[in-house]
């Protein structure tokens, strides 16, 4: 039985340029999983961008020093496929009976295809949105799971006019993504436009009922002497029968200093 709650997947990731991998996502997550950082695979920075991974592996110099950024090919010149990358990881998770497992991406720039044990899920576009996949039914019985994510850059990466300027040619504004990446008066253009799994990846184990996005609001009266905490939450019943739930809310004072709450 897996422990209930969230586990971050933030180590042991590998990355490879899509044009250098001849295998499909199904093959990568079934018959031909990469075994380690042997070319074209390298250690990946997750959360982070494609460029962060390339800098970590010294494939490109760190763009923040000197004129290094000029030596890194811009996506406008290389084409989007040059910065379209595979990210791969294996993870252990063995559920029991009626447990459920979600695979969560808190942010990906800009779109992606997720392969888990040979099954594909397409993650829709948008840099500022979360993705949560119920993968309960596609986990391996032995607990060893293979995950591969093919991440695509923004649809409109634009190109940088010779004179530079705020936001380059402004093409990036057609997408729902950070606009500074085409360069601004305070920053040189970011060559991969921040493509990548740029925020937390996690797996979360729940029982049949899942708590989703609670909302907490306080209202105040009598000059702040009287206060109310209003809490609303969404619940999802993933089970196949009516779930009779006891919903508990508990508020404890955040303790100061070294006092711990038992």
């Amino acid at each position, binding site marked *: 039985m897996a422990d*209930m709650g969230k586990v971050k997947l933030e180590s042991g990731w590998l990355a490879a340029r899509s044009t250098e991998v001849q295998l499909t996502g199904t093959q990568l997550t079934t018959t031909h999983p990469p075994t380690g950082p042997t070319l074209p695979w390298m250690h990946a920075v997750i959360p982070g961008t494609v460029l962060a991974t390339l800098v970590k592996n010294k494939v490109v110099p760190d763009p923040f020093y000197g004129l290094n950024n000029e030596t890194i090919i811009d996506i406008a010149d290389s084409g989007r496929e040059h910065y379209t990358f595979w990210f791969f990881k294996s993870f252990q998770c063995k559920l029991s009976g009626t447990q459920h497992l979600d695979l969560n991406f808190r942010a990906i720039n800009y779109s992606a295809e997720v392969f888990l044990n040979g099954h594909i899920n397409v993650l829709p576009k948008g840099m500022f949105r979360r993705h949560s996949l119920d993968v309960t039914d596609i986990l391996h019985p032995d607990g060893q799971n293979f995950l591969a994510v093919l991440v695509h850059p923004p649809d409109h990466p634009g190109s940088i006019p010779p004179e530079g300027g705020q936001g380059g040619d402004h093409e990036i*504004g057609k997408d*729902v993504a950070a606009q500074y990446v085409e360069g601004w008066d305070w920053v040189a253009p970011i060559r991969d436009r921040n493509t990548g799994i740029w925020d937390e990846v996690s797996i979360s184990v729940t029982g049949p009922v899942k708590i989703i996005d609670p909302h907490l609001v306080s*209202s105040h009266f009598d000059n702040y002497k009287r206060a109310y905490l209003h809490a609303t*939450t969404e619940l*999802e019943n993933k*089970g196949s029968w009516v779930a009779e739930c006891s919903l508990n809310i508990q*508020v*404890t004072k955040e303790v100061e200093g070294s006092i711990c709450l038992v």
Partner: protein
Amino acid sequence: EHLQTQHVSVPPGAHVQYTFPELFFYKPNLWWPNGMGQQSLYNVMITVDVKGYGESDLWSHLFGFRKIESHVDKATRGRLFKVNGQPMFIRGGNWILSDGLLRLSGNRYKTDIKFHADMNFNMIRCWGGGLAERPEFYHYCDIYGLLVWQEFWITGDVDGRGVPLSNPNGPLDHDLFMLCARDTVKLLRNHPSLALWVGGNEQVPPDDINKALKNDLKLHPYFENAIGITKLLEDSPH
């Protein structure tokens, strides 16, 4: 003393919204911005137990009791802020992002944000050309008392200005913009430091997006009429 249990039936495969009866607090420790008082935080935990199964899920979040109001002052046309009824002089900094390759970590955020608090700031403005900042950013703003002005992803330079005019109608997919905006609000809305959502930098978003944002972000009618609620609650205080 603040523990409440409610019984809810959830049909198979269904999504339901559930609102707890409000929890009453007498003289709670309030959350104050940097320089105005303590940043008191409470730990709110929600768990769901399913009959015949046991504990099914758990969620927790630090929460600060505070009331933030702001309006544009007619005389100065500047925006005036009040926290817990006290007017405050905003001392703030512009924030774009912590690292251009998005190597963002809790430690990095803690250092950056403590630095702003040590500079005696009480607000950070997240510029529209950058990111919707991450929960770890807001967590340290909660801890150090930095109010956050968070802009959505519209900027004057890229959207609707310049010669030739660029992106006069903003991004191509307005539904995608609103989906991202709604999901971002759900991700960040429980942080006491979140003080103001702003449509964009030096630019008003396209009309349909601006209307949708204003509609989604207005105060819920349930909280609109404080007198009404006071009256309601005085009749049935608990």
